[in-house]
């Protein structure tokens, strides 16, 4: 028998009650043509053997923690407090399901309510949901919301400087939904090009999607983009791939944006080779009924005590089925809990300090790149940036490979992102990068570029 299963005597007694002589009889309803032989898998292993296999697999990877890491492009290496992971490993949290029975799920529900509050505070919007799969799918849901909100308009103007993965996922969904996409270019400063935006707008456009900071790390002029979108009768959507930027940058909510959504991984979620991360979605009050995903609301119990419960669920697939606002069922609850803990630990001072420190490290690097003989040059010297910037280079992957021999993960080659971005390297800095690491990177660029 197996350590995760009941024993032989349990089975014998149960079979007796069921009135079968063997378990095999319980599968009599499965016809012979669908049956299979023994699975072609190795035999079950002990915990020690499993550990051994995964240690070996892990050993074939270079972890970012054993290198000098300036990788970003949608996944950032920020503060990861011990407290968050320790609490996350409480079985009461991670072995519970979606809080459909609120009387025995107040822990999860209250945490989500706190999460929704944090997202509203960060975005300066009215309502936020319980989380989405990731930044890319959150942006898709924003486009879908816009289409529902403005029937008859089925075109989305989307910034070419949106994260290429977000853009690619949007294309996949848009095709099936009959949404046309018009790409909006960038100007010499790496910002959304005003003329390109103006020509993309029209009476059939339901949304303008802009990322800030964008994939080049450049901070967009949200006030202007928001006003332009509004004047054209379209919803304004801000995508955020680097959520710690919200510690110093004014969010779209301040400028009348309808939706601010994206990725909260930066607040304490491990990179984990790309997932699970934490999509978020916030909107203005008038879009409440069109929100995708789960919402937790405050109410009272039979004794008048404050309590929390999943609410407005008539929007969702399990009730509205084919007419649901989204087909999503699960969110990323555990990741939302992690971010809630990290945001609580950082609090008012820390959210800002992380952002200021990350910005400072990035500015130090930028100053180095601007200096003589740095080997590379800034793609957008006039573009204001938060903690990430693009340097131009003809063979970014070759250059990164040379640096990698010195255990420097110098950035992300735009050629890896597989689009029409300028050839070069995206360099991202966080509060975890030291001056010494920065100097090693600058030195490597000088020697190897």
């Amino acid at each position, binding site marked *: 028998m197996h350590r995760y299963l009941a024993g032989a005597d349990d089975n014998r007694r149960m079979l007796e009650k069921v009135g079968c002589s063997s378990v095999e009889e319980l599968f009599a309803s499965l016809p012979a043509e669908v049956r299979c032989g023994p699975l072609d898998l190795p035999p079950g292993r002990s915990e020690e053997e499993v*550990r051994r296999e995964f240690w070996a697999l892990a050993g074939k990877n270079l972890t970012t923690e054993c290198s000098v890491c300036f990788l970003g492009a949608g996944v950032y290496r920020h503060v990861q407090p011990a407290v968050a992971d320790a609490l996350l490993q409480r079985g009461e949290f991670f072995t519970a399901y979606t809080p459909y029975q609120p009387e025995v799920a107040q822990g999860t529900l209250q945490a989500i309510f706190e999460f929704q509050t944090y997202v509203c505070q960060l975005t300066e919007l009215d309502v936020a949901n319980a989380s989405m799969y990731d930044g890319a799918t959150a942006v898709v849901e924003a486009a879908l919301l816009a289409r529902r909100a403005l029937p008859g308009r089925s075109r989305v103007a989307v910034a070419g400087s949106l994260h290429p993965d977000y853009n690619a996922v949007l294309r996949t969904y848009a095709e099936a939904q009959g949404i046309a996409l018009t790409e909006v270019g960038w100007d010499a400063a790496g910002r959304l090009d005003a003329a390109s935006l103006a020509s993309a707008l029209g009476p059939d456009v339901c949304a303008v999607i802009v990322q800030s900071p964008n994939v080049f790390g450049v901070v967009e002029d949200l006030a202007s983009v928001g006003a332009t979108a509004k004047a054209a009768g379209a919803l304004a959507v801000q995508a955020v791939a680097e959520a710690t930027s919200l510690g110093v940058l004014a969010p779209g909510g301040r400028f009348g944006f309808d939706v601010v959504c994206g990725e909260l991984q930066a607040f304490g979620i491990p990179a984990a080779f790309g997932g699970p991360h934490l999509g978020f979605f916030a909107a203005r009050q008038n879009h409440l009924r069109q929100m995708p995903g789960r919402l937790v609301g405050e109410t009272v119990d039979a004794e008048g005590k404050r309590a929390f419960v999943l609410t407005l669920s008539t929007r969702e697939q399990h009730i509205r089925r084919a007419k649901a606002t989204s087909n999503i069922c699960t969110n990323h609850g555990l990741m939302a809990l992690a971010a809630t803990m990290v945001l609580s630990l950082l609090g008012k001072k820390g959210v800002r300090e992380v952002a200021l420190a990350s910005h400072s490290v990035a500015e130090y690097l930028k100053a180095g790149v601007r200096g003589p003989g740095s080997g590379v040059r800034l793609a957008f010297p006039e573009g204001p940036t938060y903690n990430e910037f693009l340097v131009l280079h003809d063979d970014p992957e070759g250059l990164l490979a040379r640096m990698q021999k010195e255990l420097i993960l110098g950035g992300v080659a735009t050629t890896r992102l597989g689009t029409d971005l300028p050839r070069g390297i995206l360099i991202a800095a966080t509060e975890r990068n030291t001056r010494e690491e920065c100097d090693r990177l600058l030195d490597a660029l000088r020697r190897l570029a």
Partner: protein
Amino acid sequence: MSDTRSLREREKLIFEASSPGRVGYQLPTLDVPAADPAATIPAASLRGEIAELPEVSEVDVVRHFTRLSKWNYSVDEGLYPLGSCTMKYNPRINEEVVRLAGIAHLHPLQPVDLVQGALALMWELEQALIAVTGMARVTLQPAAGAHGELTGMLMIRKALQARGEHRKVVLIPDSAHGTNPATAVFAGFEVVEIASNEQGTLDLEPVRTHLDGGNVAALMATVPNTLGVFEPEIARLAGMLHEKGAFLYMDGANLNAFVGVAQPGKMGADALHINLHKTFSTPHGGGGPGAGPVAVSQALVPFLPVPTVEKSGDRFDLVHDHPATIGKVRGFYGNFGMLVRALAYIRSMGGAGLKAMTEGAVLNANYIRKSLEGIYNLKYTGPSLHEVVFDDSRQAEKGVHNIDIAKRLLDYGFHPPTMSFPLIVHGALMIEPTESEGIQELDAFIEAMKAIALEAEENPEMLHGAPYTTPVRRLDEVRAARQPVLRWQRPRE
């Protein structure tokens, strides 16, 4: 005594615990010059401190979330018989290995030679899922079951387009989970509902009739269906669909009912999502993250989302070059952390162990069925696999409904079964014990269900007020929906 607290007292919101000057973190000393954002970023794009964020210490945070955790019921605490959700034990070794630095701290855009172990792991999991399902290939990208459904349906759509066909109709049985119709619509199809027969399963005839129209793209079927009953005609249905150029989408939510016994590949499935958080033990996390890999038949392989993980000699690579792909369905490559846990589970169980898992799940469900039959009504009496769906019709005669039974179960220390579907069973009580439970836990649950049935006879009024012993009592859900309060706000002075 108003200032004292008891274990039944509620925890404040973290925002209400805020006290000026407290911090719960310390950053490394900043050893580069502090940069003023205003020096480079236009003032209008900047913000100051976010005034409403809390100020709490590390101890405050530990206490707050520890207390909150105690208000949750979880699999670690006991039987969690939510039908269709497969709340099985989540092994701790899975949690350990996913936190190895060489696994948790990998950036998805590191050069591929520095992540060969991660790619090997994904490749191994794909091979294992192929072995389990008997399908041609598997994409690991979808983030959840519903996301997997969408990925599968987009592939079917693309395959039809590649043949120059624009079929619009997707057939879905009335017993289906709500994600199926929602997904079909999001993939650009129209839904036609197919009525189940008296056994709650699918007949060939209604499907054949629709197929004759020539506009059917696919049938979405859950196997076994949401009653826990195997679809006896599934292979013939697949044959009929294929003959007419349509596809069989199989909802794999209930795959755990036949792993090691039968294979979707042999049933004729063209696409099947696999909820790793159900069959393969990854934790539900209070509502995600899940993972919903999709296994496909040879016919759909060209349309898999990119990138795929390919092996050549000893080297693994991420390959984007698939001209007919549906594209990307999410950022990067999937919920990698969930993939790691699932592979650890498959390694722990082994081939024979997975079959024993299936047998345990089916035996446990049948034990509950046998023990409660005659006490709760069983509308559909076909043979149960991993779950059994009773209903409240006997108790309803006394005015007691499934919600009352569910809430009373909380007083007996158990999480209730699923009640919201299948829609073909009014007042459903869908019970899925999983293989994790031994006979004592099952007996305790059965005794509780029997006791509640008795209470329904003798004291139905009492059940309407249940639960009585939980941290909070029944909630005013009407108020929550009529005047939605979805965030905390500082009370006005």
